[in-house]
């Protein structure tokens, strides 16, 4: 009984992770912009460390990340907990 319950919990957790992951499908450009995915237009490692991210955050707040004319993420609900971009630090007003 305990093993069955544990197995069910594991399956449920996996399902939840899969569901969250599938609902956040950035396009190629956004994957690069978020520092994930395969980069084809710049350095291979676009992940910024924390200090560099804070420096670029001051500049990043002047940009609109989601432009509905070019990015598919803008048309979907954006899960902020999935995003590593500095927009989390400046709030939701950057999502348009």
């Amino acid at each position, binding site marked *: 009984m305990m093993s069955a319950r544990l197995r069910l919990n594991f399956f449920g957790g996996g399902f939840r992770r899969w569901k969250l992951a599938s609902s956040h499908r950035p*396009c190629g*450009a*956004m994957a*690069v*912009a978020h520092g994930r995915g395969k980069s084809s*237009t*710049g*350095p291979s490692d*676009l992940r*910024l460390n924390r200090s560099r991210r804070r420096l*670029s955050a*001051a*500049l*990043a*707040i*002047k*940009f*609109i*990340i989601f*432009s509905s*004319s*070019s*990015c598919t993420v803008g048309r979907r609900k954006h899960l902020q907990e999935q995003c590593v971009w500095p927009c989390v630090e400046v709030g939701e007003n*950057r999502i348009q």
Partner: protein
Amino acid sequence: MGRDKARRLSGSRHFRQRVVLATLTSTAITIDDIRSGGAAPGLRPHEVSLLHLLHKISDHHSLDLNETGTKLRYKPGVIVGGRDLEHDCGVHRGIGYFLEPLILLGLFARAPISIRLKGITNDTKDPSVDTFRMVTLHMLKQFGVPLEGLELKIESRGAPPLGGGEVFLRVPNIKSTLKAANWADEGMVKRIRGVSFSTRVSPQIENRIIYAARGIFNRFIPDVHIFTDHRSGSAGGRSAGYGVSVVAETTTGCLLSADATVSYPNVDEMNEESENLELTSPEDLGVQVASMLLEEVAQGGVVDSAHQGLLFILCALSPPDVSKVRVGQLTPYAIETLRNIRDFLDVKFIIKPDPNSNTVTLKCVGAGVKNLARKTS
């Protein structure tokens, strides 16, 4: 604002701006000590070329230059404008050096100006013709100038040192006065556009520039599109060169620009060290121009550093209403422009720093300069 007595000025600083403001305000000026202590005294060739350009678009003016070129007496006449004009800007300065005076004078001309300018379209000293076409002409919209009559067509591109470029400019004249501007909302950057060009070199260089620039931009925004403009043959001018101009557009319609060009040294820059000159690689050029544009975005303001001076002049020429603009850090050229505006137009700006956004808000009551040259029916 006609004045009988000539205003005495000294030195060669901001020669172009002084002459333009004197023409717009019908103020006679006398400039002494023009590089009198230098090894090459007097006016530079591009400044003489500017005077020739004024001669073509104005009437009933007088110019008196002494033998050494260190003293100039200028009495402005009427700006008549004209169609199908041609002017060779030479190879000492880019065409961008002459475009700003033409835009200002053309607005207050008797007839619209259509002129063909020949020379260097992209160099390191002056804004490129792409920047004028993408940014400067659109800035006039804030002051009530319709964009329909404005046009800058790039016929051929010319890089230093030999030039060979050609552009066609059309500037409409305003009926009476400009419109006061209330331009303080800078917005957020929503897209980046640009043009990468190459003349008499491999077209692959443009792709290398774009690839490097996008590597920087895509960290911040995905909507980046830089066009390519490869010129060969006669359309590519007489010298090899390559460069890029980029523009950031905000949600409120502001345009911030940056451009960079790689070419062989200009005539004035030619020296012994030029023989060992190493040209900047396309990749470094792309990174450089991207960093320049990001710096402009970081500074804030509704215009970039290169357009602050023109923005202040347009505000000062506006009707006697309050004009309000927001800019980033004031450049030395902009500060000198404010001084010239005070001297010629008697307009003083109220400068208010904004510590929250690290920008500066400027307010002024315009001088209300009217287009008196225009015929009234």
